[in-house]
């Protein structure tokens, strides 16, 4: 366990303490990405409204502890990432079908970078559509665009 990871975990622990969230934390890794996994009974405070509180803590923790840009830790909470990923793939595929019949670009809801990436990846092998991120900051969203037919 690196010193930076320890600092990051202790920062997250303090924040959770202030927010009165009772949880345990454990480090895991997936495809080379370090993940701090937060688990507990009632995680509604962290996961409400598209997990905006979880994402806010993740952003602050990386800002406080990551002097280098190439080092980022993901926060997960009660399998939120896996469930969200499954959900986003369904949303992406369904929206792509819509685009293929309407032949009009379709913008999805604004999402954080990690979620946009899941959408891009879900449609990367579909020759009928392409995806693009548009907008800035918290308003950046994936737009699914029909490919021109030959």
């Amino acid at each position, binding site marked *: 366990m690196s010193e930076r990871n320890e600092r990051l975990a202790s*920062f997250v622990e*303090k*924040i959770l303490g*202030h*927010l*009165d969230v009772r949880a345990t934390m454990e480090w895991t890794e997936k495809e080379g990405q370090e993940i701090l996994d937060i688990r507990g009974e009632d995680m509604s*405070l962290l996961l*409400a409204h598209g997990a*905006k*509180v979880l994402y*806010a*803590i993740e*952003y*602050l923790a990386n*800002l*406080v502890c990551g002097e280098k840009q190439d080092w980022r830790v993901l926060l997960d909470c009660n399998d939120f990432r896996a469930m969200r990923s499954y959900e986003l793939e369904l949303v992406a595929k369904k929206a792509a079908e819509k685009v293929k019949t309407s032949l009009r670009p379709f913008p999805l809801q604004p999402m954080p970078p990690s979620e946009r990436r899941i959408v891009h990846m879900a449609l990367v092998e579909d020759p009928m559509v392409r995806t693009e991120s548009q907008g*800035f*900051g*918290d308003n950046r969203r994936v737009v699914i665009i029909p490919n021109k037919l030959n």
Partner: protein
Amino acid sequence: MPMKELIEEIAKALVDDPEQVTVTEVEGEQTTVLELRVAQSDLGKVIGKQGRTARAIRTLLGASGMKLRKRFVLEILE
């Protein structure tokens, strides 16, 4: 008060000059205003690009406010 400490904790971790971080709490009936003061050179650190850091801190305040049935407002002062 826990919210004051939360803001102090985060702000001190973000700035270069933690000794100049102060948070004062102005309590109203429904709304509590938290006034965060940092060194002028650290203002950008607590606000962030396009206010992203300030917004993240406000998100945390909003969440705990919901739990405590109170409204918290963060003001960043020089």
